């Protein structure tokens, strides 16, 4: 088309004017998308991975925080749990344009390359805001330190626990005089309890997530004192006999029909909700689901099967993802936000999580929460994932464990082979040069 084309075909709106107009409209629309940060207002962008009941509770807490802090602009974004969240967070931090604050599983801290992807907390600001070491459990606090710098502030501890249907368990004769689950222990105790429940349900004793049995396996393996990595964290010292022993128990329970042979996560929850199972071994975060469903249930620590109440768990923390130009003002507001969340973490605890902030964890308000405070004593016995760049919640190592162990309950893979496969997978990960 030459210049003559336009002259011959006059249109009411010239092409050029149209293009200019639409470009301007585009710019104006893009402008609308920019956050409304009034001058002098500190900005706290928060990224998290909380869905379901936790997500709803977080939104409520954020609304209250915003009401009480009009000078801070809090913008919270929720992403899908696990790898989708962590990949996005890592990429934003790798580019130096991360949000001011994000949630992170404590077990993933080392694997998240804290020195490049996270900014350390300014300790003086934390002290000013009242966030100090003695207000947390020593083991949890220690895990937040990397090379002496503090990279995470813990919000909660979330153990693997026992849910029990009070009506089914009463009928099975498992409740004590107070209507609580009478503690049972040992392999025989567990099997007897599961059998008694199955008598009532006619289907399963307990529901567990068999497609990803890492938490169940690791709880029991740690009860056997099984070790994972050596001191240096570079050598695998997995005890094959103990690992096989745990998997054999899981297989036997599934063979007898006391556990489902196959249940993915939603099925594990559904089986407990609809009474196919009278017990459920799962993380404590489903308390809201069952409360909303008005299920007659309560909660207890994961049973002592091999002589201790160790149970798998993790901790949600706040971290400062790496920003190229971190503003002191925004960081101050961020620390203020974190301190507020810790002080109000009894609201968070309603979702099942044990508050990490000890002034709240020992408060009457928290102790009055049932069933959420029924298993608080396990906080000290929570077993975090072995530490490596490929371990932690939603990590590669958990997927490898899921791949190897899921076949055991379904009867496809003998326990010995499952352990051999898992061992080989972890050795391969150890051999891979660490990318962090």
């Amino acid at each position, binding site marked *: 088309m030459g210049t003559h084309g336009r002259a*011959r075909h006059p249109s009411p709106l010239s092409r050029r004017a149209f293009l200019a107009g639409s470009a301007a409209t585009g710019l104006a629309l893009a402008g609308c998308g920019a956050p409304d940060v009034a001058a002098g207002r500190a900005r706290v962008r928060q990224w998290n991975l909380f869905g379901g009941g936790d997500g709803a509770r977080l939104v409520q807490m954020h609304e209250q925080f915003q009401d009480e802090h009009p000078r801070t602009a809090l913008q919270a974004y929720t992403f899908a749990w696990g790898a989708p969240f962590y990949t996005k967070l890592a990429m934003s931090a790798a580019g130096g344009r991360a949000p001011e604050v994000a949630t992170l599983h404590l077990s993933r801290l080392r694997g998240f390359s804290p020195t490049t992807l996270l900014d350390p907390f300014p300790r003086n600001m934390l002290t000013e805001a009242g966030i100090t070491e003695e207000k947390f459990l020593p083991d949890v606090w220690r895990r937040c330190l990397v090379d002496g710098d503090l990279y995470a502030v813990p919000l909660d501890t979330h153990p693997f626990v026992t849910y029990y249907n009070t009506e089914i368990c009463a009928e099975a004769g498992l409740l004590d005089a107070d209507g609580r689950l009478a503690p049972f222990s040992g392999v025989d105790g567990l099997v007897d309890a599961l059998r008694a429940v199955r008598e009532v349900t006619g289907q399963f004793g307990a529901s567990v997530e068999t497609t990803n049995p890492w938490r169940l396996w690791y709880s029991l393996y740690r009860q056997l004192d099984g070790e994972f990595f050596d001191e240096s964290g570079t050598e695998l010292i997995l005890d094959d006999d103990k690992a096989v022993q745990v998997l054999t128990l899981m297989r036997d329970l599934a063979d007898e029909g006391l556990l489902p042979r*196959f249940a993915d996560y939603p099925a594990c929850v559904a089986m407990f909700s609809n009474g196919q199972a009278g017990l459920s071994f799962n993380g404590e975060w489903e308390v809201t689901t069952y409360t909303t469903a008005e299920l007659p249930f309560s909660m207890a620590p994961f049973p002592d099967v091999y002589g201790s109440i160790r149970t798998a768990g993790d901790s949600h923390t706040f971290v400062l993802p790496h920003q190229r130009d971190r503003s002191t003002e925004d960081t101050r507001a961020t620390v203020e936000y974190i301190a507020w969340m810790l002080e109000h973490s009894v609201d968070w605890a309603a979702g099942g999580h044990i508050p990490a902030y000890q002034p709240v964890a020992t408060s009457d308000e928290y102790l009055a929460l049932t069933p959420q405070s029924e298993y608080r004593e396990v906080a000290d016995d929570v077993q975090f994932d072995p530490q490596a760049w490929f371990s932690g919640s939603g990590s590669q190592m958990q997927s490898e464990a899921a791949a190897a162990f899921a076949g055991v309950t379904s009867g496809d893979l003998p326990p010995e082979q499952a352990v051999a496969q898992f061992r080989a997978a972890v050795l391969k990960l150890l051999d891979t040069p660490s990318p962090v």
Partner: protein
Amino acid sequence: MAVNVSSTAAGRSGTATARTGSPRTERLAGLWFVLPFLALFAAFMIWPVVSGLWQSFFNVSLAGGEASFLGLDNWTEMIGDAAVWDSLWNTVAFTLMSTPPLVAIALVMALLANRSGWFGWLLRFAYFAPFVLPVAVVTLIWVWMYQPGFGLVNAFLTGIGLPEVGWLNDESVAMLSVVITTTWWTVGFNFLLYLAALQGIPQHLYEAAAVDGASPRQRLWRVTLPMLRRTTGLIVVLQLVASLKIFDQIYLMLDGGPNNSTRPIIQYIYETGFTSYRIGYASAISYMFFAVIILISVAQFRLFSGRKEESQ
């Protein structure tokens, strides 16, 4: 708008001899028109392709830090990495299993919908409806249907006295489950292409065949199917490419399980690059997969150009 375009075309053809501008300025003007596209294409296509290849020779980490030159280490690691070849095979297996039903069933559905009279609209709607659903909804529905014990499919099987099938937990069945779900979900698109092609077959061919005494079966084999050959070629090409891209359904339904038996190569690339931060190694695997796709495309191109010559 449409009027504008046609009048421009008419004007152009009418004044082709009366042009005053030199070919050179015409060409320059053309360049300005494609420049915005070229810039975007270079920034979002050419540059990533080149830099991806470059990165495959370094230990680039998503977590940052200095990347050092590895030479061919990523590539030799890939050759010895069984997970790469297992997942590549899973992708190929899915493609081989899903393409035939997605083409054949679409054809049968199109033939049915084309023949039926007053309820044709219902068939067209019913066959195409699943295609408009997002993948997350599709997988959610099918995962519940496949559940053991209370899932719709297994409840039906036990209801008629058959044993349950471990749709999601049996290694030998899981891929088939994904193929069934994918067929239900996407067959509507191929169906639409076939239906359009069927309606494009001139009626006089059938009339001539009928006059010559061809039975309905002969009309199908001698008129309809040969006339659909080009469409079938197109559908097979599109379907192969779409199937090789498999990731969403498997990731959402099975997360590559049970025991990685369905994990497609794209999921392994995603896990390596984004979950484990090893962008350099993930790039090397991507390039290998890229080469496989090119090989398949070239093979198809050969087949097709061969067929065209044959028909001339």
